[in-house]
């Protein structure tokens, strides 16, 4: 997968993870995540919220990996390849 779309996704991807990091710190975490309710499967929201961010990041990383948009060049062999 190459071309302008790939390049755009590769450039935007770090910003996505900056955004999900922002979800985990002040002011967003205290505002959105730091509460007991709503509970999910009996767990408090403060824990579920962090788990959801992990899931979102994992899905995003999987998508980027499968789509081969971030530095997906294959190896050229140990020590014997070139640039």
């Amino acid at each position, binding site marked *: 997968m190459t071309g302008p779309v790939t390049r755009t996704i590769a450039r935007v991807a*770090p910003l996505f993870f900056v955004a999900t990091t922002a979800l985990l*710190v002040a*002011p967003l*975490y205290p505002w959105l995540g730091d509460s007991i309710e709503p509970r999910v*499967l009996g767990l408090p929201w403060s824990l579920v919220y962090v*788990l959801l*961010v992990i899931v979102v990041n994992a899905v995003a*990383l999987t998508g980027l990996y499968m789509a081969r948009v971030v530095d997906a060049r294959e190896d050229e062999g140990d020590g014997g*390849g070139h640039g």
Partner: protein
Amino acid sequence: MGSALIFGYLGFALVLGIWAGRRGSGGSDDFITGERSFGPVLMYFVMGAMVFSAYALLGTPQRVMVKGSDAFYALAYGAVAFVPIFFFGARVRRIGAREGLVTQAEFFGARFASRRLTAIMGLASLLACVPYIVIQFKGAGIVMQQVLGWDPVLGAAVVYAVVTLYVMFGGMRGVGWTNVLQGVVMLAVVWWLGLEIPQQLFGGVGPMFDRVIAERPEYLTLPGPAPGTSDAQWSAEVLLSILGFTMWPQVFMKCFTARSARLVQHSAVVYPTFLLFLVPLFFLGYAALLLPGAPKDERVLLWLVGHPSLAGGELMTACFSLAVLAASMSTGDALLHGGSSIFVRDVLIKGAGLQLSERVQTWTLRITVVVLGVLGLWMMSLAGRWSLVDLLLLAYAVPVQFLTITLLGLYWRRANGVAAVGGLCAGLGLVIALFAASKLAPTVYAAINPWDLQIGVLGLVVNLAVMVALSLATPPMAKSHLQRFEL
């Protein structure tokens, strides 16, 4: 039952580690990177088991007991911790294989054409590694004391004699294959206990949290129990951990062990499944919180699994002891292995310019593993007089200083050797000076750092400013050199 399981486990780990080491050529490249041959299963467990230490296993429930939901910070920073490796890991793997580089300091020494940089990074890495090694020893010592009644230093010595042997003779392959064993043990035991104990004591995880909400709701949100964690403290903890995590030499070095560049990215993709290992530890922390008389130190989980109201307590204690040993050994072996690799390759060969034959290099690596093990034991025996928490404060502040070199070195063509050395020295110098001031002259420290900001972050800001300024003020490196590093 406990002693038989522990000695059986140690024996099996020893045989497995040494057997794995015999699969390679036995040279120094084999010792340090396993000849860059690790597939997806080995990479998964090497990354996961290395990260989850005895500190995570014993310290996470303790943190719930003391600070409540502040303990979730480990999960929060873990959510992003491996993302940087996804972006730069493949490139590091490719360049490392092409240029024959096997350690983090060697990599950036080559990028910036500076042996001095390699030596400084190597020494700083060793400084950061030692307190972390001591913590792993402490975890092993606690288990051996609990199960066998041994003195913790003697217990740690026995466990780490096994680890030292399989790292010496198994090298990276020994570390990798034993990490598979240790990872499986940790995941299985922790998930089993994390679900079984709340089930037996409270009728399940949900009913347990009903009780926490009714009796100790302040433990489920920030700031938590007094004195509490402010939003700013929580954010600083999460951000500093994210920034520093992949800069730890033993983490960064794993980019060199993968069979391919894509596999490094794959490791970052699957890592969150290992991260979920922390969830049952939170459950266990909250279970202990609800029981009267629970200790608030790192022994809380061993106390919980031996609680008289639990059926099968002996089996639980034995299995949990194995999990702690696995956590301690899987991180301790990576640290001993990484520390010896750094000392020999970065400090002796690159820094001091020693010319060592392949055979001498391999044996020096092995002897350094023993020396680091003895040093760790010695420091553990002094732990009563030395505050481990204080040393860890310094240890965490050091690898963060490598962030500027990594990001600017990989992505900014203007960054050069003079700037890299200048920035790193400024950052490390400030961190060490502030640390010393905080211990020796607290009033001076309070005047310099009135908001008690993390010393690692302060060092990083100075480091970045110096590196950018010097890079712009001095000539860039040759284009032909930069091309070797995909710039």
